[in-house]
């Protein structure tokens, strides 16, 4: 019996072979160490993400999330839903809020769910992995298993938008949340004074309007270098992908020489807990984090 159990909602990007597969693997090993049991919601589906707004409309989006609620409630009764992806967390939480707010929406949703042979009694809490770590365990608990502190390594904690707004982590400010820096400290590394920690990476516009998005990504990476960081760390798959994979194109466009690895907090923790490069999913980083790979090899 693990000390904590949750209904796991990995989301589309955090699957094998998907764009955040290394997030998934590092989260798995991190949770193993922390004795957190994550049971995947059977047959979960996409949250719809923010960008689907135009095609999806309102109700279909809520219905998609409602299906996950129903499945979780049915198969993992009493467990909070935990998402690792900011968009999944936000999308699901928004739907929960709206459905609980509007009887009309709720009624329609139930009616639609019927088509899939489902229905909702109580919508489970929808949490982000980071909330679980900070609120259910606490920084002290997170420090305990540290075997190999990441001494002297400098990280810019890039929180981004959707893990931070509109809900955010309880007690943190929207403009200057500290939790990521604290997580970095708890694994023995050093957070830098990074003034773009909540700047938007362009989100979905990275696909549709690359120029606008990349202009923002450039500001973020630049500020990270200015802050003396060696690497970027983030809690969000889209932030991770956007800030990592476009550095090459930005270099071409702006003549910069960006080559900054972008990691997930879960990767740092896995390593600090003594995990291997593979367990930490370092092989999943497009811009290889050599320093960490060496560190893991030690």
């Amino acid at each position, binding site marked *: 019996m693990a000390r904590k159990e949750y209904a796991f909602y990995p989301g589309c990007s955090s699957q094998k072979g998907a764009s955040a597969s290394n997030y998934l693997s590092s989260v798995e090993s991190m949770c193993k160490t922390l004795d957190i049991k994550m049971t995947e919601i059977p047959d979960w589906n996409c949250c719809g993400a923010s960008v689907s707004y135009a095609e999806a409309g309102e109700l279909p989006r809520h219905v998609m999330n409602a299906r996950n609620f129903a499945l979780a409630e049915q198969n993992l009764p009493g467990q909070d839903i935990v998402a690792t992806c900011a968009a999944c967390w936000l999308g699901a939480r928004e739907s929960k809020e709206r459905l609980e707010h509007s009887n*009309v929406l709720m009624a329609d949703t139930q009616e639609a769910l019927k088509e899939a042979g489902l229905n909702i009694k109580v919508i489970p809490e929808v949490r982000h992995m980071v909330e679980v770590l900070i609120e259910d365990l606490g920084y002290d608990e997170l420090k305990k298993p540290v075997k190999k502190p990441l001494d002297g390594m400098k990280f810019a904690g890039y929180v981004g938008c959707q893990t931070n707004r509109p809900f955010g982590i309880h007690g943190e400010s929207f403009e200057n949340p500290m939790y990521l820096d604290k997580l970095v400290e708890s694994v023995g590394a050093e957070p830098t004074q990074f003034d773009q920690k909540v700047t938007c990476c362009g989100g979905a516009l990275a696909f549709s309007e690359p120029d606008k998005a990349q202009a923002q990504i450039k500001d973020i990476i630049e500020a990270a270098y200015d802050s003396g960081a060696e690497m970027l760390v983030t809690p969000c798959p889209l932030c991770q992908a956007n800030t990592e994979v476009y550095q090459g194109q930005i270099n071409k466009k702006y003549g910069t020489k960006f080559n900054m690895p972008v990691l997930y907090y879960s990767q740092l923790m896995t390593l600090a807990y003594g995990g291997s490069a593979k367990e930490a999913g370092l092989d999943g980083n497009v811009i290889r984090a050599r320093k960490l790979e060496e560190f893991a090899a030690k």
Partner: protein
Amino acid sequence: MSDMNQQMTARYKNNFLKEIEEQAEMGDWVKMCMQCGVCSGSCPTNFHGGWDHPPQELFMMIRAGKRDEVLSSNSMWQCVSCYNCYVRCPRKVPITHVMHGLAEYAYRLGKAPKGQPTQHLSKTFWDNATKYGRVNEVKLTQSLYFKDGIGSGIKKALEMQSMALGLVKAKRLNPMEAVGGGHKCKDLKGIHAMLAKARELEAKRKGRQPA
């Protein structure tokens, strides 16, 4: 599509505010804006190139009944869903959602600017996600590149090649997904039926003829 536009024009005559309040998601918040401008100042894309009309201005235009200008505006498609405006609005107007709502409504009416890339992304993403219940990233990427036809598709693909290759090397992009592989939900039938119902109910609630 456009017959829905006629339908709505007929129903709301010149009362565009009322139209938005009833038809656009969160549209009933538009009237609460007090024109402080904090949303416009909070928008990151606003400071990279700017918008035709920032949120608060769009709200004013709605009140002023500038229907065509609003609906055909490129502005709401600039939203990156960063929620800065949302959390700062002194009137607690859920601006991010209002923007999405306006975009969605303009799109339904067929008034949204043609070939708007984010609009295309929105459709492609949703279709992709709902087809199998989960996103197929390869197919998504492909359909995005080739939206403007083969030629530019290949060009884009080449631009993106290094990046794509990088992802493949990192096992974060699985080419197999392009050919039938890839993640999908088991109960696709249920999902599709459920969504069809949802669309039907929404159309009903908003008094729109189901497309």
